[in-house]
């Protein structure tokens, strides 16, 4: 299926991004820039308690404050009578949970849970009004740890929630909403036959995606029932769908305009402010704008789940894995639905393991409802698997890289969940580690160590639409439905340009709203360059088909006498007759008018997963326990890198987020469930001053399921860093850390335990 055998003119080059000038000059329009005449400003009241029953809400004093125009609570939602489900385009979720997470219905499940919204003539009055809302709470004991929540006598967050197990309701009331289990072969017998078996436990803290731009929404609900929402989102259509469901409002009367987005990483798929702004606008007949503070973002939006993971691996004396077993419990926060199933899929995704058992549990706790964060749950499980792989190699006296290569997954490998890999690039990714200058180089300082690891993300396909309008000057306006988070406008435009024989700069890509482009799923799951790029490829071929018809008119010949190759339309019977794309575009007016091409895809096959691997050199301060990154390399299989700079940017960005997750970042909770570090001063994301240049190496094992061989690269790169760093710390100072973050006092404690013979 791969087009042109890899001989490209545009693909693989590094043109300047189409939106670059607007963004570096501050002209790009983000949600915070939205202004309308008569616009009101909103604020959200949030729960001070991690777990409480809402006994009453009295809004009368707030409503009486001069300048306040409206107050809304969960009572303003349509009745939620059943646990209806809605598919957001990346998986289903409960409507009752969604409404309750937007504005609490009868209980609050985390500190920061939204309880009420206010609209006023300015932000100060809205803020003042929030303080006048009187909420009577019955405070309940919080449940803050996944293992505590799973205990038989644990406080139940949802009194009637029972555990389901692949379609079967167990009837058991529990904080465990879902149990998944996969078994391959006979793991018990295989472990019994193994020469070496290593089993270890790991815990990871709740961490946030840390996007720079906070959530925002502006809504205008007109008196004719038409609702328009301007917002920062990873998917305009997904937001439209959620708004329709939460508000019980037809999507035909709901328009969502995605504005420029300052990061998402999975956190801007669910709605938070959008329905509140809509309800306030409906009550006031005015546009209403809401923006979160950073504390709101930390406390009121969905971080990635904290976890408890236990991994056991067994190998024979020749260094072949014979069995694997994983137990993983993920915190879904106040409502069920963590990305736990992704962890189940990924935990042994890098290796050929003939016998395995995996159990996964989705567990509610009194923390914000967790959502996706870049390869959700793959980082947590990679920490476990890759640490145990290192330990087995050591016990067998094998080279840790060669041990991985000897067991690496390949085409035909059956995962423990039963799926069989198509062509993948796991081996090539590890081989690039082996062949890198970094791997060959010596360490450069005292107390340094080098770790390696590899991680997997499966990627998704889903639906995309692209429309291409040919201009008279031969340029093309390309409207696509994918929010551009990481340069996808350009990577999509380049795929179009490659087909039609234009330069990337001749394409003018724009992100459409829900009224201007066909349905397109979220920018997530590493799907945008893959799927929306494919839609652009289809749109380009539609344009070429129409342009051939126009050339045939001009040459007064049959359509099939017009050939197109390498950007040139030629008459098959007359070598003198030819047009390049721009020349032919100039003739459109006299051959039938506009040419508009369309492309839609819903790839049923060939999504093609991606693997990423790291080499991490760390330097450990023995006195303070601080771990510094001395050198860091990331390798990833991109299938085909459409725009190598943006691929490298994804690889570097994911690596930095993984490093932060490994060393610094965590929601630090007090015993009563308050987040004690809800600012970027106290929630420590690594900066350029903390890190060396992240060295990217792109591997290209073309995905046979895409016209240009693309594999999504947005996520797999966040999976391996914590494991690589943990393994590097062990190489540096001989202690194994199995709890994230590996902050200084944990390193010191491990060193002290080591010194004491522990």
């Amino acid at each position, binding site marked *: 299926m791969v087009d042109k055998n890899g001989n490209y003119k545009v693909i693989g080059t590094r043109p300047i991004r189409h939106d670059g000038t607007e963004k570096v000059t501050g002209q790009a329009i983000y949600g915070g820039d939205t202004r309308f005449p008569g616009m009101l400003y909103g604020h959200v009241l949030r729960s001070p308690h991690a777990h409480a029953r809402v006994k009453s809400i009295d809004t009368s004093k707030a409503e009486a404050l001069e300048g306040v125009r409206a107050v809304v609570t969960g009572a303003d939602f349509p009745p939620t009578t059943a646990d209806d489900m809605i598919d957001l385009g990346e*998986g289903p979720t409960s409507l009752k949970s969604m409404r309750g997470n937007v504005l609490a219905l009868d209980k609050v499940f985390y500190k920061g849970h939204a309880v009420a919204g206010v609209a006023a003539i300015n932000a100060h009055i809205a803020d003042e009004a929030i303080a006048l809302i009187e909420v009577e709470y019955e405070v309940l004991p919080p449940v803050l740890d996944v293992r505590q929540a799973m205990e038989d006598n644990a406080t139940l967050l949802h009194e009637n929630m029972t555990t389901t197990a692949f379609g079967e309701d167990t009837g058991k009331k529990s904080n465990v909403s879902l149990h998944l289990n996969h078994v391959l072969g006979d793991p018990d017998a295989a472990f019994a036959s193994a020469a070496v078996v290593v089993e270890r436990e790991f815990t990871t803290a709740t961490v946030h995606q840390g996007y720079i731009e906070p959530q925002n929404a502006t809504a205008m609900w007109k008196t004719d029932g038409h609702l328009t929402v301007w917002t920062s989102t990873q998917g305009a259509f997904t937001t439209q769908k959620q708004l329709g469901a939460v508000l019980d409002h037809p999507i035909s009367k709901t328009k969502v305009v995605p504005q420029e987005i300052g990061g998402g990483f999975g956190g801007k798929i669910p709605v938070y402010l959008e329905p509140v702004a809509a309800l306030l606008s409906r009550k006031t007949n005015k546009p209403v704008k809401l923006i979160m503070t950073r504390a709101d973002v930390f406390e009121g939006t969905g971080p990635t789940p904290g976890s408890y993971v236990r991994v056991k691996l067994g190998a024979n004396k020749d260094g072949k894995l014979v069995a694997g077993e994983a137990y993983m419990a993920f915190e879904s926060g106040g409502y069920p639905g963590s990305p736990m199933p992704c962890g189940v899929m990924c935990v042994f995704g890098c290796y050929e393991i003939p016998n395995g058992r995996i159990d996964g549990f989705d567990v509610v706790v009194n923390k914000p409802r967790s959502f996706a964060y870049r390869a959700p749950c793959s980082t947590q499980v990679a920490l476990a698997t890759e640490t145990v792989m290192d330990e087995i190699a050591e016990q067998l006296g094998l080279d840790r890289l060669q041990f991985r290569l000897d067991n690496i997954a390949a085409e035909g490998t059956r995962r423990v969940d039963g799926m069989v890999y198509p062509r993948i690039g796991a081996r090539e990714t590890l081989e690039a580690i082996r062949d890198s200058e970094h791997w060959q180089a010596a360490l450069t300082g005292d107390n340094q160590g080098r770790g390696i690891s590899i991680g997997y993300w499966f990627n998704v396909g889903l639906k995309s639409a692209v429309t291409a309008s040919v201009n008279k000057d031969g340029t093309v306006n390309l409207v696509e439905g994918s929010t551009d988070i990481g340069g996808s406008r350009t990577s999509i435009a380049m795929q179009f340009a490659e087909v039609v024989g234009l330069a990337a700069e001749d394409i003018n890509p724009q992100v459409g709203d829900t009224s201007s482009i066909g349905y397109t799923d979220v920018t997530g799951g590493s799907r945008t360059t893959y799927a929306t790029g494919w839609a652009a490829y289809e749109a380009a071929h539609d344009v070429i088909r129409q342009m051939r018809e126009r050339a045939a008119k001009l040459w007064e010949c049959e359509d099939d006498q017009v050939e197109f190759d390498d950007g040139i339309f030629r008459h098959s019977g007359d070598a003198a007759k030819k047009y390049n794309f721009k020349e032919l575009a100039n003739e459109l007016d006299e051959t039938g008018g506009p040419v508009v091409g369309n492309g839609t895809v*819903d790839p*049923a096959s060939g999504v093609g997963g991606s693997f990423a691997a790291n080499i991490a050199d760390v330097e450990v301060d023995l006195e303070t326990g601080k771990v510094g990154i001395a050198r860091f390399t990331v390798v990833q299989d991109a299938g085909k890198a459409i725009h190598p700079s943006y691929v490298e940017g994804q690889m570097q960005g994911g690596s930095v987020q993984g490093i932060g997750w490994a060393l610094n970042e965590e929601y630090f909770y007090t015993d009563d469930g308050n987040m004690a570090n809800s600012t970027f001063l106290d929630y420590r994301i690594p900066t350029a001053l903390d890190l060396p240049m992240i060295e990217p190496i792109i591997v290209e094992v073309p995905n046979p399921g895409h016209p240009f061989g693309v594999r999504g690269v947005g996520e797999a790169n966040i999976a391996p860093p914590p494991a690589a760093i943990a393994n590097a710390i062990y190489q540096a100072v001989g202690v194994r850390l199995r709890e994230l973050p590996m902050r200084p006092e944990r390193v010191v404690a491990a060193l002290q335990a080591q010194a004491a013979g522990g």
Partner: protein
Amino acid sequence: MPMVWVPSLMQKLTDGQAHVEVEGETVRQVIENLDAAFPGFKARVCDENDRLRHDVAVAVDGEVSSEGMRRKVKPDSEVNFLPALAGG
């Protein structure tokens, strides 16, 4: 006949069998025939509207699609029932 990999949590319906061969040219026919052989199977993977449950995905020959029950199945196909997944 298509080979169905039975999720471990559903194998008590198939008397412990992890793999079952069953006739069918579509996912719907495979499920119907599975339910005839192992009563209760359909209720675990389909909802009351005769669609795949919201939290279930079906892969045919390693590929998950949105065609759901209408997905074509070949005589040598492998059918897997999986939890529905999402990304970030």
